[in-house]
């Protein structure tokens, strides 16, 4: 149970639904697509503010750059999360 309310894609409308649809249209490795069919939790964590969602994930999108191979980018991401004791 999250500490803050979270609005999933199925319950979203208006600006939030548009933000979810834009997020869903981005190229996404299958490892980042959860089985439950909704947006990933880290995206839904931003659901109280669609503009915050858009601007934050625009940065992560700009870092999807092949100057490093995917496995190296994932290694950096995973080590960073691990150092912060976080499952993400």
């Amino acid at each position, binding site marked *: 149970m999250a500490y803050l309310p979270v609005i999933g894609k199925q319950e979203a409308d208006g600006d939030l639904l548009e933000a979810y649809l834009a997020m869903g249209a981005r190229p996404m490795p299958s490892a980042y697509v959860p089985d439950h069919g909704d947006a990933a939790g880290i995206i839904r964590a931003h659901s109280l503010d669609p503009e915050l969602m858009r601007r934050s994930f625009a940065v*992560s999108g700009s870092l999807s750059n092949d100057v490093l191979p995917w496995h190296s980018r994932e*290694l950096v991401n995973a080590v960073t999360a691990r150092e912060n004791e976080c499952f993400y």
Partner: protein
Amino acid sequence: MLGQEVDELPAQDACLVDFAQSLTARPWTVGVAEIRRLTAAGFSDQAIVLVVGLVAMFNYLTRVADGTGIEADYGGVLPEFAYRGLTDSAPRPAPEDWPTLEPDIPCLSLLPGVAAAVDRWREYVAEGSDPLSPAVRHRLRWVTARNTCDGTVPAPDPAGTQPEDQLDRFADKLSRTPWLMSQADVDDLRTTGLDDRAVLHVIATVAYQSAESRLRIGLSALARAGS
């Protein structure tokens, strides 16, 4: 570590692991020598900007995840995550031993699109006026930057923002030990009258500054290494 020991990794990957660990857990130790290790391992300046950017972004995402209390929902691709049970992060050095930094973040323009995206992010999270005042955001960023040993965020006006105690406590915990965040921390913040969206912005502001300070430290070192 992720099911494999660092010394079993190829040299380039081991170098990435070392750098990501340092910039995350001990950012004040990242300087020209750490950048030169990456360069010697074969990474271009563009690749180093990307590595610093990824570390910064995941310092944001992990704090949003821990601050909001979302649960893991990805499939079982990675080995099961095991917490180490840490109760504190590395001790910070005294301010006179912090890295020398400029307010501007250098080198971001080496990667197309990143500088513009970061500018738009900063404008909304670090400088916005809704639902938090700029003074509250400034206070949160100051506490967070100090925990990263980034002295470029000036101290807040002594007249202060209310309620200082709860804001400082929340920002300190989320920036230093995000894995220890709990429902009680969010509830403590709510007692100040902040609504749910404002609490999300408190989390996002601290998480943003955790990323920005690491961007500044890592890319300042890259700029110095090339000068």
